[in-house]
């Protein structure tokens, strides 16, 4: 069943069209809403929450119309906003408890759930600290905790990894996945970092300038392509190894593309076995040091560079 469906959803701000007749069906599970800044991700979220009136089109979320039954709908949604400002002087536990109450938890229940949610996101020891003294990573966790404390059916997370370093980002992503899997909460998370979306999402909705670029299951959208990507190490004793490999492969009639970093290349051709052998021999002959040899994959990035379908 679709959690969120839109048909012909259009949002116009003055002369700017933030969303352009969007037809989206978000399925159960973790869905990544990807796109560049200004692609319309936040606008779509605010329409899902019923905070704006669309210029045209329909939206249904959890079977409800956000405009007509907004309060009822929002009671089932946990929302983690993109803005990173939170009440400075409020202790994390007070803030999460308050948001749980506002989202419908009875008072006694809210206190316990706030504490549980903070422990779940790894802030159990820090729950009495005020939000202003917390780091970016901790505040992102608090935003997640307040969104899940009311046990929502649907989590909307706007850029939940923004400003996090890799370790924190991994932890946040696995937390989100864990919450979704263990507690059966559907998640729609937006991000402009495609690689993280690829890492945890079941489904993708990709936007570009307010238009739908692609949607569907992740494995249907990214997959193998012809050829391999080769990365070689630059070594002091074999300074020409990379160029040697490139020229040998080119001489064999394969298409070789330099990657964006100097020690990477892509070798393209229809016959996978032939490529594998030629690459192996070229590398061996050039005395090059292999870092990686990998099948070329279509990445989400390609969805955007390919332009709108």
């Amino acid at each position, binding site marked *: 069943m679709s959690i969120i469906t839109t048909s012909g959803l259009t949002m116009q701000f003055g002369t700017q069209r933030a969303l352009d007749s969007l037809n989206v069906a978000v399925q159960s599970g973790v869905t990544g809403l990807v796109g560049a800044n200004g692609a319309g991700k936040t606008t779509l979220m605010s329409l899902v929450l019923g905070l704006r009136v669309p210029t045209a089109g329909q939206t249904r979320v959890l079977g409800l119309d956000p405009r007509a039954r907004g309060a009822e709908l929002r009671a089932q949604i946990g929302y983690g906003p993109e803005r990173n400002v939170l009440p400075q002087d409020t202790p994390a536990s007070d803030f999460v408890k308050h948001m749980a109450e506002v989202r419908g938890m009875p008072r006694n229940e809210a206190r316990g759930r706030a504490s549980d949610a903070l422990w779940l996101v790894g802030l159990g020891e820090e729950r009495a600290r005020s939000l202003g003294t917390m780091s970016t990573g901790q505040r992102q966790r608090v935003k997640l905790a307040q969104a899940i404390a009311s046990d929502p059916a649907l989590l909307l997370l706007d850029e939940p990894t923004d400003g996090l370093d*890799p370790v924190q980002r*991994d932890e946040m992503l696995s937390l989100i996945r864990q919450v979704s899997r263990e507690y059966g909460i559907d998640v729609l998370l937006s991000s402009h970092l*495609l690689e993280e979306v690829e890492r945890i999402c079941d489904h993708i909705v990709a936007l570009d300038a307010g238009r739908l670029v692609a949607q569907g299951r992740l494995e249907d959208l990214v997959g193998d392509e012809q050829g391999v990507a080769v990365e070689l190490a630059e070594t002091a004793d074999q300074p020409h190894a990379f160029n040697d490999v490139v020229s040998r492969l080119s001489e064999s009639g394969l298409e070789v593309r330099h990657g964006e970093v100097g020690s990477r290349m892509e070798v393209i051709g229809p016959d996978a076995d032939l490529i*594998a052998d030629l690459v192996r021999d070229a*590398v*061996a002959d050039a005395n090059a040091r292999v870092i990686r040899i990998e099948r070329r994959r279509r990445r989400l990035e390609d969805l955007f560079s390919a332009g709108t379908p």
Partner: protein
Amino acid sequence: MSAPESSLEPPPAPPPVSTARPIVEVQNVTKSFGDVVAVSDVSFTVGPGVTALLGPNGAGKSTLFRMLCGLTAPSRGTVRVLGEKAREHRNVRGRIGLAPQQDALLDRFTAYEFVELAGRTHGVADPSGQARQSLAYVDLDPEDPKRVGAYSKGMRQRVKLAAALVNDPDLLILDEPLTGLDPVQRNRMISLFHDLGDGGKCLLVSSHVLDEVARIGSNVLVIAQGRLVASGDYRRLRELMDDRPHRIRVHSDDARKLASALIGRGVADGAAVRENALLIDTLNVDRFGRSIAPISAELGIRLREVVPTDDDLESVFRYLVERR
């Protein structure tokens, strides 16, 4: 998992990242805010070219940059830019270009006005011409009548960069210039950095996104928990990292034969076959990387994929940070 203790400690003397005259000298610098130590006994020098300052959030990157610019004084130690302290010497401030981390601009100015003002406040000879040139450099239109308050995050980042460039500084400090940018914008920014570095400027660029850092520059300073945990050439850093155990996944048409050959020749220290893939553990990736192709060629094994499972920068970084 143990690594030799000394291999990644900051070397006793500031590592000569470049042989040229150092533009930035940081000596035994400590900065604390109350009881919290943000930067702890850090020393390094940086010369021309692009240097990436890498570290998790809260590691002390911004504090270090602020001290370089003189925006705050170190609690102990000295920070010199071009031989002087920016906090005390007026003219040194004119040779620094800073794009601060915070997304703060004079929102009521147009991009041109903002950059032109930066030029004026720097006392450049031709603020208007310089501003146009800087804006053109970052692909912004000087005639755009929109105020920067209405700009997207990516455009604001570029306005900051243009303002930092307008005085043709010797030292460019860019604090997290890539956050909030989409992949296309990021690529464009990175190539800008390389152009500037090739032009002889000293660029210090901080980031916490590791896959970006390899592209930003080969000189890396890694800072974690307020300390300089590693510095030098990114590739050499990686070679240093070769001491730790690596795990590499190899897809071939004969996993068992390849496994026994690799172990037999001492290239692999351990091997396991799982779902057609060969998982190799090795303590010496250099030898492994040089041997895998010749050995397969010799044995006639078709090599489809060789994928390090823990050799991306994020793993390196995690290793550096978590080992401590």
